[in-house]
C-alpha cells in the first residue's frame, strides 16, 4: 500500500511537470520538484534491486509459473516500438535522401539509442541469469526468435552508438574520426535499417508459437507485420513529441513544418496499420470474439479506436498539424495505443487462457519507471553537453525561416 502510494506520488509529480512544461507554464521550482521525485524514486529502486538479486524475482514481482512474463516484457516490447523513429528517419535521410529531415536525425538517433538502452537495462533485470546474456552470441540456436532478437539488439545498439558517435567526436574535436564515419555512413545506415526491420518484426514473431494462448482478436500469423508497421508509425510520433519537449525544456529551435510533415506521414501509416488489423480480424472471422465475456473486447476497441484511428484522423487535419501543442496532443494517444498493444499481446490477451493471477507488483512498475527516467535524464544531459540539435550543428536557418520555440 505504501509502495503504491509512493509510486502514485512520484508519477503524479512527474506527469504534472510534463503537462506544465508542455503548456509553457513551468512552475517556479519545477526543476527542484523533478529532481526530488526522481531522486526518491531512484533510491527506492536501488533497494528494490537489492531485493531482486538477493531474494529472487518472486520477492519483488507478481510473476509466477502461470505468468512467467509480466509488464517488464510488455514495456520492453513498447520500448523497442517507440525507438522505431531511429531507423525510419535514418532511412528517410540517408537511403531515400530526403535531406530536409537531416536536422532532426541526430536527436532521433539518440532517442532510439536510449530506447534500446532501456530495453537492454530491462533485460539485465528481467532475465534470471543476466551474466549469461552473452550466451546467444556464442551458443547458437538459429531456430529461436529470441536468438535473432538477442543478435539484433546487440548489433543495432552498436550501430546506433556508431551513428550517434559523430556528436561525441565533434564535441571532443576529433575531426578525423568524424570524417571516417562520414564516409562509412551509408553502409552503416543500411545495416541499421535492416537490423531494425528484422528486430521490430521479430518482436511480434515471438508470439507466433502460442496460437492457443493468445486471444484470437490479437493472434495472427501477421503479428510480425503488425509490429513492424506500428513501430514505424509510432516512431514518427515519438519524434514529434520528443522534438516538442526538447524545444520547451532545452530552449532548442526546431522546424515545426518538418514535424507537421512527419505527422502527416504518421497519419497515413497509422491508417494503413489500422486497416490491416481490421482486414485481418475479418479474414479470420474473429469479430464475434469481441463479445467474449470479460473486458478484452473493450481493450481491442480502445486500442484500435483511441490508439490508432483517433490519432490517424487527428493528424490528417491541417488544423491540428499547424499547432505544435495540438500536434503533440494528437500523437500521445498513438504512443499510448502501441504501449497498450504490446502489453496486451504479451500479457492481457493471455488472461482468458491462463486465468487471473497476475497484477503487476508496485516494485516491477518502480523499476520500469526508473529506467524510463534514466533514459529521459540521459537525453537531457546529452542535449546539454553534446551537439545534438541543429542549432549546435550550425545548420543555419530552416528553409522557410519559421521555427518554433
Amino acid at each position, binding site marked *: 500500500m505504501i509502495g503504491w502510494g509512493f509510486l502514485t506520488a512520484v508519477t503524479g509529480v512527474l506527469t504534472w511537470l510534463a503537462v506544465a512544461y508542455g503548456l509553457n507554464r513551468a512552475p517556479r521550482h519545477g526543476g527542484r520538484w523533478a529532481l526530488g521525485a526522481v531522486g526518491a524514486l531512484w533510491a527506492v529502486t536501488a533497494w528494490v534491486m537489492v531485493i*531482486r*538479486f*538477493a*531474494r*529472487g*524475482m*518472486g520477492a519483488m514481482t507478481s*510473476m*509466477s*509459473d*502461470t505468468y*512467467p*512474463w509480466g509488464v517488464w516484457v510488455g514495456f520492453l516490447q513498447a520500448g523497442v516500438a517507440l525507438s522505431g523513429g531511429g531507423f525510419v528517419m535514418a*532511412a528517410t535521410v*540517408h*537511403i*531515400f*535522401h530526403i*535531406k530536409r529531415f537531416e536536422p532532426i536525425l541526430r536527436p532521433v538517433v539518440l532517442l532510439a539509442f536510449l530506447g534500446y538502452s532501456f530495453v537492454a537495462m530491462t533485460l539485465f533485470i528481467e*532475465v*534470471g*541469469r*543476466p551474466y*549469461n*546474456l552473452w*550466451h*546467444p552470441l556464442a*551458443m*547458437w*540456436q*538459429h*531456430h*529461436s*526468435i*529470441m*536468438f*535473432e*532478437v*538477442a543478435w539484433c539488439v546487440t548489433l543495432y545498439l552498436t550501430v546506433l552508438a556508431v551513428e550517434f558517435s559523430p556528436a561525441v567526436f565533434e564535441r571532443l574535436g576529433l575531426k578525423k574520426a568524424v570524417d571516417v564515419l*562520414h*564516409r562509412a*555512413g*551509408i553502409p552503416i*545506415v*543500411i545495416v541499421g*535499417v*535492416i537490423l531494425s*526491420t*528484422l528486430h521490430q518484426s*521479430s518482436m511480434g*514473431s*515471438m508470439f*507466433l*508459437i*502460442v*496460437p*492457443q*494462448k493468445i486471444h484470437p482478436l490479437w493472434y495472427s*500469423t501477421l503479428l*510480425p507485420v503488425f509490429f513492424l508497421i506500428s513501430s514505424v508509425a509510432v516512431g514518427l510520433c515519438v519524434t514529434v513529441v520528443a522534438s516538442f519537449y526538447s524545444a520547451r525544456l532545452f530552449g532548442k529551435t526546431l522546424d515545426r513544418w518538418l514535424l507537421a510533415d512527419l505527422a502527416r506521414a504518421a497519419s497515413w501509416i497509422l491508417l494503413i496499420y489500422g486497416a490491416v488489423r481490421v482486414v485481418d480480424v475479418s479474414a479470420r472471422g474473429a469479430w464475434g470474439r469481441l463479445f467474449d465475456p470479460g473486458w478484452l473486447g473493450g481493450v481491442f476497441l480502445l486500442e484500435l479506436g483511441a490508439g490508432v484511428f483517433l490519432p490517424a484522423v487527428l493528424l490528417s487535419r491541417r488544423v491540428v498539424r499547424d499547432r505544435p501543442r495540438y500536434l503533440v496532443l494528437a500523437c500521445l494517444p498513438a504512443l499510448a495505443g502501441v504501449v497498450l498493444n504490446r502489453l496486451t499481446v504479451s500479457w492481457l490477451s493471455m488472461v482468458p487462457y491462463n486465468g487471473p493471477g497476475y497484477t503487476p507488483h508496485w516494485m516491477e512498475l518502480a523499476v520500469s519507471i526508473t529506467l524510463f527516467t534514466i533514459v529521459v535524464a540521459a537525453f537531457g544531459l546529452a542535449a546539454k553537453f553534446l551537439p545534438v540539435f541543429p542549432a549546435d550543428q550550425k545548420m543555419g536557418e530552416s528553409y522557410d525561416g519559421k521555427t518554433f520555440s
Partner: protein
Amino acid sequence: MSDGLTRRGFFKGALGALAAAVLPQSMARASGAPSKAGVAGVLVDITRCIGCRACQRGCQRANDLNAPQELMDMEHLATRLEPSFHQWTVVNREGGGDAPVRQVKRQCMHCLEPACVSVCPVAALDQTDQGPVIYRESRCIGCRYCMIACPFDVPRFEWDNGLTPVIGKCQFCAQQRLFKGLPPGCVEACPTGALKFGRRDDLLFEAKARLRSRSDVYVDHVYGEHEVGGTSWLYISDTPFEKLGFKKNLPKRPLPTLTWDVVSWIPGIVAVLASLFGVLAFSLSRKNHQDSSGGPA
C-alpha cells in the same frame, strides 16, 4: 522474382553450411527431419493409477531433488500439489462433477517436435537422439521463453533465487538412467503398472490394443499420438481427457513450424533489403552529387 528465389535458396544453403560448421551436432540435426518412431516413451494408463504418489518420490530420488516429501503419499491425495522447479511430476485428483474422479500424473510430455527447444535461444533445452528433452543449466539465461511457448505449461522457474535460478522440468531421467538402459525413476517406482516404459511405436501399438480389447471402458483417444505433432508420453483413459484437465484443441501441427515459417525467410529478406537499399541509397546519393556539391551523410 526467380532471381529473388534463387538468392533466397542460396542464402538458406549458405546458412545451412555455416550451421553445420559452427553449431553443436544436435542443432545441425534439428534442421533435418529425423525419424521419431523409435524414441523412448511412457504409456500412462489412467484407469490403473491408484494415486499412491510413489512416482513422485521415485522422481525426487532419481533426480536428487529436495521438494518436501510429507505430502507425497495416498493419505494426502486430497491435497493438490503443483509442479515446481524441484517437483517435476505430480499426481492429483482430477475430474469430479459429472465425470468420475481419477488420479492423473503430470510431467513433461517430451514432444517429438518440442516448442521449448525451438524457442530456447541458447539450446539450454535440447532434444537428445533418444527423444527426451533435457535442460542444461550452465547455458540458461533465464529468459523463460520456454515457459511461454510450452503448450502443456510444463517448465517451472526458481522464483526465489536471485542469482542462479534454474528452469525445472522432467528430463526423462535421461542422463542418469535412460542412457544406461534403465527406465525413468517414476516408472520404476509405480506399483500398479499404470506407467509402462518402452519404445514409443511399441507403446502406441499396445495403447491401441488396450483400447480395442476394452472399448467399453476406454475413451477412443490416445492422448499424445497427434497432439502438437505427437509426444513421447502417451495417455489412455476411461474418462474424456478434457474433463481431467488435459489441454484440448491443441493443433496437430508441430508448433515450431509456426516460427520456422518466418525464420526461414530471414536470409531472403536480408538479401532483398540489402540490395534494394544499397541500390537506392547509392544511386540517389550520386544524383544528389550531380545536382549539388553537397556530399552524402
